[in-house]
């Protein structure tokens, strides 16, 4: 009798382990409906983040660190720095959201973040980003950024050259040359911004 019971003790777990039996159940069975204002896990819009680091500076627990992330906008975020949040420290006060100048950081209704180790709850931009560019779009944008940088360099060189010339000529010829170069640069910049805009919209 006793032996049979002991065998049963072993067979039952074996049986249950092989079959798919629900062990942990969610209680309450349906998750509570969270309001729109809920301050849960952050949602990062990587396409508009400018990597200014305001969120990291205002955080009372200094849980935000700026890290590198590929799928952002290299035109606006030159060093490609995006927030990484340590949820072990975060107290969900929402000051980072209030402080963000471009409103790319929001707090959403996601609230579960359990992990097996401490480093599991340090969530990088890869986890936080709800909106991001694909690799192809990033490549395009990078090419665009390079082009703009090259353009700028060219203008700067031209300006330098003009200045040198002006210095050589002395006096009256200097001023018009400078103004002309500046106006030229501004026009180029405007054109570049206009080109970048439609791409953003497409990604969003």
């Amino acid at each position, binding site marked *: 009798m006793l032996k049979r019971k002991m065998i049963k003790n072993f067979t039952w777990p074996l049986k249950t382990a092989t079959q798919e039996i629900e062990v942990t159940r969610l209680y309450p069975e349906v998750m509570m409906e969270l*309001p*729109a*204002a809920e301050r849960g896990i952050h949602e990062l819009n990587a396409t508009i983040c400018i990597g200014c680091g305001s969120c990291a500076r*205002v955080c*009372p627990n200094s849980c935000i660190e700026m890290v590198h992330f590929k799928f952002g906008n290299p035109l606006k975020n030159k060093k490609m720095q995006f927030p990484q949040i340590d949820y072990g420290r975060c*107290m969900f*006060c929402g000051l980072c959201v*209030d402080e963000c100048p471009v409103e790319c950081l929001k707090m959403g209704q996601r609230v579960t973040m359990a992990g097996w180790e401490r480093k599991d709850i340090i969530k990088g931009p890869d986890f936080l980003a709800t909106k991001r560019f694909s690799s192809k779009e990033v490549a395009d944008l990078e090419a665009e950024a390079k082009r703009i940088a090259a353009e700028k360099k060219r203008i700067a060189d031209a300006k330098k050259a003009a200045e040198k010339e002006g210095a050589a000529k002395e006096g009256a010829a200097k001023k018009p040359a400078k103004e002309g170069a500046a106006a030229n640069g501004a026009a180029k910049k405007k054109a570049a911004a206009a080109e970048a805009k439609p791409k953003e919209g497409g990604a969003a």
Partner: protein
Amino acid sequence: MTNASEVLSSIQSAFPGAVLDSRVESDRRLWATIDSNKILDVCKHLSSKLNFDHYSGSAGVDWIARKEMEVVAIMASHGAHQVVAMLKVKTPRENPSVKSLTGLYWNANWYEREIWEMLGINFEGHPELYPLLLSDGLMGAWPWRKDFKGYPDLTTGERAVAITTTEGYTEYHFPPTPAEIEAGTVVTQRPKYPSFREREEREIKSDSEMIMHLGPQHAMVPGPFLLDILVEGERVKKAFLDIGYIHKGIEKIMENRTWLQGITYTDRMCYVASLSNNECYCGAVEKILGLEVPLRAQYIRVILEELSRIQSHLIGTGEFLTLIAGVGFAPWQYMIMDREKIISLIESVTGARLTHTFVRFGGVRNDLPEGFAEQCRKDLPYMKSRIEEFIELFAQDPIYHARMENIGSISAETAKRMGCAGRVLRAAGVAYDMRREDPILVYPELDFDIVTGTRGDSADRIDVTLREILQSIRIIEQCLDKIPSGPIKTDVKIPKKIPAGEAYYRVEDPRGEMGMYVISDGGDKPYRVKVRGPFYATFQTLTPLLEGVYIADAVAIAGSMDGCPSESDR
């Protein structure tokens, strides 16, 4: 009605030369620097002639640049007039010492002890200068002084050295490292005083008496504190209170955070009252800035603070009722279920359930969401019917009456003298409510009653609490009708550096009068934030109230105060 300038002229005429410096901020606020030799006489004059019968607390400030320290006594009146006098006394930074007010005001005891242990200001004539919040190991470090360098990090277990005592126990010590000794973070000179154990053991007079420990983890007040009672048989002869088990040093932390970041710390003082704590801090900063809060934001603040009061009262009462036999566990469960509705309402606006960080300088964080008023109008009548049911339930329960009536009674006179706050004071029959005494926001435009009791016992305290919920519901309903549309934040840009100044702002916390004394020196961080917590004031009266009662009644008395050691320890 007395106003601040009349009070000032009265002091000046009675004691010529005693007032070194003064400022009349408004009709209700008087700031005066008093000659340290005459402070006792001035206070006597105030309490006897001008009805200043409420010593509301005191704050110590370390002015390191001016090489002096300041003790600011906050004096008010229980309803005779509405002036709050902030009396400053200066003392040199070397060997600071001022006269104690404990002879005049019984409740000055704890406030002065706190200043002594934190800043090292000696109080001449104080009967018991023992540490209150700090542990014995930190005495002499004077942590609130501006030149405090921080104390050694004792949180790592690696530096613990195990020593076996003669009795065979293992004790762990944390010796400081040479670097820490050199940096001056280790206390070398400790003041001498009898320890808590020695003090309570001194009181044992005969073999039939013994000391019983309730705490530090005791259920009757949520939060750790140690209550030792000296008992003879079933009677309590004397009680000893040791607090500071959850001392977080919030006031010091806030000195090291920016003005905006400070709001998040006020949440953590008492999480069931975080909205009033937010309000208190932001209100004080707004006063320094001279900001006008938009009307809609004021209404939102009032609605949420009253909702917060309801949920705080529900959890406080429910939790306490589980502790006394008779009514048992059922009310707790009903109350916590009802509280869920209120919490959801607050959450739908603020986005957080307990630590809201919602109030901002000159406004609020979010606007009310769509459908909030409808949901409120649906939930509040239900809440009203439930509260009426609870009142009826407790009124007719004989076991509840036997446990609660005439237990821990406190008369109006005693309550005033001891400086109780909130429900303890109002249950004794003193209608003292900050919403009337020091009206803020739109409270003057709202119609509500201040609920008072008659007997001042434990049953009355619970009754007052429940009837206060009905008043809160009344306030919210009026606000929902009156709330205008408009901006929720002021247009003025809040500077990162707040201009130099000081302000004292009082709100009605769910537990009573709460005040914050905020000083700015023109920097991006507060120079000093002093929190005058309501439960700190009430907690002090627990030990005298427990004298002579039965052991079982200790729970009924302490629990009915709706305590929160987290807020009193800060």
